[in-house]
């Protein structure tokens, strides 16, 4: 049997509990948000970086399609670094620092690496210059031959005419 005073106490307790809920729930939600682990990187995001890396163990196979245990570990390493907030460039720098420039699909232009950036344009330039020169020479030769051919025909006609007139 409830007395009025008991009812009031219950109401007070209920009110207090409600107040607690109102105060505590948003705080706990915010706390939970703060503690949430960072989202796991999407495989596409990992592969986009992995395709620009090469594991020294499996030569000439990009990391995104390499099936060895070493490559699987490296892909996991990319995922971990992405989770830690590393940018794409920072991940490339990390791998180059750990395993050397040879793991990068596009090695930085330093040291002997300069050759791969300088040599192709220079070779193309030299080849283009040689091609241009050959074309010019061929054109000059053709023109000379045509001219020589014209003189020759004229000369022959003149010769024939002279012979007829004799």
């Amino acid at each position: 049997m409830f007395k009025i005073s008991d009812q009031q106490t219950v109401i007070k307790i209920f009110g207090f509990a409600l107040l607690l809920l109102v105060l505590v729930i948003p705080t706990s939600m915010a706390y939970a948000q703060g503690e949430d682990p960072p989202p796991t990187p999407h495989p596409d995001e990992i592969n986009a970086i992995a395709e620009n890396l090469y594991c020294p163990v499996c030569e000439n196979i990009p990391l995104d399609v390499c099936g060895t245990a070493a490559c699987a570990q490296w892909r996991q390493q990319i995922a971990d670094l992405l989770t830690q907030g590393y940018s794409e460039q920072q991940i490339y720098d990390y791998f180059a620092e750990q395993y050397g420039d040879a793991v990068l699909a596009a090695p930085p232009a330093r040291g002997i690496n300069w050759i791969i950036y300088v040599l192709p344009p220079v070779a193309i330039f030299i080849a283009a210059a040689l091609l241009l020169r050959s074309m010019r020479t061929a054109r000059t030769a053709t023109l000379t031959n045509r001219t020589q051919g014209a003189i020759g025909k004229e000369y022959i006609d003149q010769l024939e005419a002279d012979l007829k007139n004799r």
Partner: protein
Amino acid sequence: MTSENSRPPIAFWPRALAWLLLIGLLTLVALQLRTSQQGVLTSGEPAPEFTLTTFDGQEIGPADLQGKIVVVNFWASWCKPCEQEAEALQTAWEMYASRGDVVFLGIDYVDTEAEALAYLERWEITYPNGPDLRTQISHTFRMRGVPETFIINREGEIAFVKIGPFTSLEEITSLIDRLLES
């Protein structure tokens, strides 16, 4: 008059540049071929100098290894054959650790640190281990794959090279004992 005779002569500098490029390129190719054809270091060759920074930040350099017998083991956590010798290497290390003139060094090749540390913990390896940063140490030893072990004598020369895993503890200790006796 032929077409060859009508071709203007190429100036000296373009010709010199083209030859220089060609010679330079061939030299590079030759050097690369020479390096790749050399194979791993062999017995009698001087051991390359290197500095290993261990996983716990300790630096071990040539001064620390001078006059000692050094067992340099290349391994990786993803390397299954490495597991075959892990226990024997640790046991061998425990046998010689108190002497002070035998050093074991583990060089972790192309590995991730978390996996490497887990491997060391799993096999209870206590001798100094560190990553092969930028794969420089493996390059100087002209290493071809893991596991590979180089045993260096007191004179700083390569005494033994083991390609692949050691099959027993005796195999390791017999090589070290031979160097200790000599």
